[in-house]
């Protein structure tokens, strides 16, 4: 079997709200798949259908070769899940929750548990009611990562983590990749999905709008450059890979394909750069640019 997750034409409505509107998603076995979309676009709904927690209105869903609605419990023994909003039993300690979840799933690797607690700098003796959002997320992450399963479903797992812990998380994902595990990683941060994933699917308003390897999606990951030069950079449009040129407050703003950054810099350098900012595009900028709509307006419409 080389397809871990296969979804086609998935539809799910809540009352009059259409959460998923014909979603297609393919995740191959052994890949880290970024599931990218703004808040309220249907990521969590998709994952909950994959877990058999919600029933699909229409469409085909196959998970690890089975039907997640009918064979939920059997399939779940082969996967681990980290919810986006981690709620824990307030009077249990973090360590107790980790052990409990692992036992419900069918066992824990003690050495790996200790290693993960150390890596994520988590105190397992604290009652979970005193944990911050980030610490609750760490509990769920350690519980999931300490289990050796085929598939990991991670719903925005880094949203409460600080940058150091994000590094620890990246390290863990790297290990899963080496061991040939499949990971579905949902996120609304383009850079995160880009850094971790082999392939990416972008969801918008309950539909996949782009899907492919990072190379195929290279045009989406252009770098935005904001630069001020002593002499005018009038010929910037002639540099290959440059797009969306604008002048703001005497500064030049443009996007450039990652492959052509070098040429752009070569052109700008002789013009005497006095200030330079560059950053990867945010998902919001990407949506604005590629699909011509505003994410804020859309999330309001779909949310709920």
């Amino acid at each position, binding site marked *: 079997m080389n397809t871990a997750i296969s979804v086609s034409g998935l539809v799910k409505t809540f009352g009059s709200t259409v959460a998923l509107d014909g979603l297609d998603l393919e995740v191959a076995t052994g890949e880290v798949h970024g599931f990218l979309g703004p808040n309220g676009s249907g990521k969590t709904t998709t994952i909950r259908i994959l*877990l058999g927690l*919600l*029933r699909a209105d229409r469409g085909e869903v196959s998970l690890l070769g089975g039907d997640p609605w009918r064979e939920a*419990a059997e399939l*779940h023994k082969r996967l681990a899940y980290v919810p986006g909003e981690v709620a824990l*039993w307030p009077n249990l*300690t973090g360590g107790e929750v*980790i*052990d409990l979840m692992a036992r419900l*799933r069918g066992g824990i690797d003690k050495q790996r548990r200790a290693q993960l607690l150390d890596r994520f700098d988590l105190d397992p003796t604290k009652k979970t009611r005193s944990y911050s959002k980030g610490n609750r997320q760490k509990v769920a992450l350690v519980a999931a990562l300490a289990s050796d399963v085929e598939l990991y479903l991670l719903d925005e797992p880094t949203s409460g983590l600080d940058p150091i812990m994000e590094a620890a998380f990246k390290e863990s994902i790297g290990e899963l990749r080496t061991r040939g595990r499949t990971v579905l990683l949902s996120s609304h941060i383009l850079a995160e999905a880009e850094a971790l994933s082999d392939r990416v699917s972008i969801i918008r308003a309950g539909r996949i709008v782009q899907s492919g390897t990072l190379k195929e999606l290279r045009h989406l990951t252009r770098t935005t450059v904001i630069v001020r030069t002593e002499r005018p950079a009038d010929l910037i449009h002639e540099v290959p890979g440059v797009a969306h040129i604008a002048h703001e407050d005497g500064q030049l703003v443009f996007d450039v394909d990652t492959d052509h950054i070098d040429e752009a810099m070569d052109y700008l350098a002789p013009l005497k750069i006095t200030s330079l900012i560059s950053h990867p595009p945010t998902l919001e900028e990407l949506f604005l640019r590629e699909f011509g709509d505003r994410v804020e307006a859309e999330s309001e419409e779909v949310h709920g």
Partner: protein
Amino acid sequence: MTAFTGVAPLLRFVLRRDRVFLPVWILSIVVLTYASAAAVRRTYDTQVEIDSYAANIGSSPASIAMAGPPVALREIGGILIYETSLTALVGVALMAIFSVVRHTRREEEAGRVELLGSTVVSPHAVITAAVVVAGLASVVVGFGVALAFQAEQQPALESTLYGASIAAMGIVFAGVAACAAQLMTHARGAVGLSLAVLGLAFALRAVGDVGNSLWSWLSPMGWSQQVRLYDDNRPWPLALSLTLTVLLLVATVVLESRRDLGAGIVPARPGVAEASPSLSGVLGLSWRLQRGAVLGWAIGVWAMGLTFGSFSESIENMVEDNPTLAQYFESIGAESIVDAFFATAMVLLGILAAGYAVSSALRTRAEESADRLEPVLATGVSRPRWLLGSLLVTLVGTTVVVAAGGFGVGLSYAGTTKEVSEIWRMTAYSLAYLPAVLVLVAVAVLLVGWVPRVAGAAWAALAVCFVISYLGGLLELPQSLLDVSPFTHVPGVPAEELTAAPLVVLLLLAGAGVAVGLVGFRRRDIAS
């Protein structure tokens, strides 16, 4: 910025958030007080009956320990106070505790005080608003109780003083809760500490009242009762309550100034780093989550049973003097008055135990809406296994709580009769109500399975059963309505013969209800 900047808008905010919570509490306390006062006044309507009450109930240490000092029991007013003050005083204290903690430590734990603190409010505005609202609510309860006593034709002076003594109790415990909210890091801890203080206040006055000693004067609950209504009618003990409140509030402000937001004075204790072997699987988890509740309810119902059992001796004497009571017990059709009394006690204990059963069954929905079910169902646990596993804990817990009531009755009855076998006989009788209680569990499961959003309606079903069993005879409800409650169908042991047929039918009904509920639970979306 003065000390009270931001209190006014916060007050409005707190009142708005409490627009259901507080009215429900206030109405419950006032209506319960009114209903029992009315019933008591109707039961003891001749001087002979009143004197008999004073001689029997008023001299029983168990009853004094529960109710308070036996003051002026040779007039109906004294009996009304004696019969209603425990519920009213404890009720108003609980209301104040829950209300204050809910708006202070719980909000702080949820991080919402931080949000408020960043706006223009003074450092103590949140606690001030919470205490003011709880204090006002206590005064409203006192006012309502005073009106209820007026409605029962009691003198204005006694009615007003009674209301004031109840309000004073609420105000003191608003102060206790405010202080506890500073000391403890978590809302649960703050509620626990406040309840411990309430328990201590109860215990001190129980010891003091039984031994007629000064211990009662160490208890805020004692102060409210030392007004000695219908006798001395002295308001000055309430000044002690107000003085203590002021001291508690000063301590609260000092403590709050010395601590950081989110921190408590008492540091949280660390727990275990690894789960014990028993914490595994659905059963292990459910038991862990519910064992505290099972223990608490079992002790509560057991204590109630103990009290009922202790009345057995005085009840025979009283019935001789009181035709109303005699008529009531005759209507049950018992040969022995004591058996008839126990039959009534068993129903009440059964309904009380159903309170645990319903709350336990509804925990399934609570886990779901708190988003804690989702990760469990995402492991190898199937929906039926999870639901039935949780309900197995409910079944065991319910059995323990139901039996605890009969055990309590038997224990104190055995104390008077010196017949040890009474302990087991009464425990067995109480278990006759288990099938009826399980029908209510099934109602909760049906709701959780098919209409989870209104699962709380299971409480309404329990309330209906309570009204039918407790007031059905008094209100002369038609038989068809009485039959709605499963408790109606349980043979009234020990006054009636124990027959298996109705119990088997109730068990089958409960089983069918759970099965149908499970079908719904398997088919629907898991929602938060």
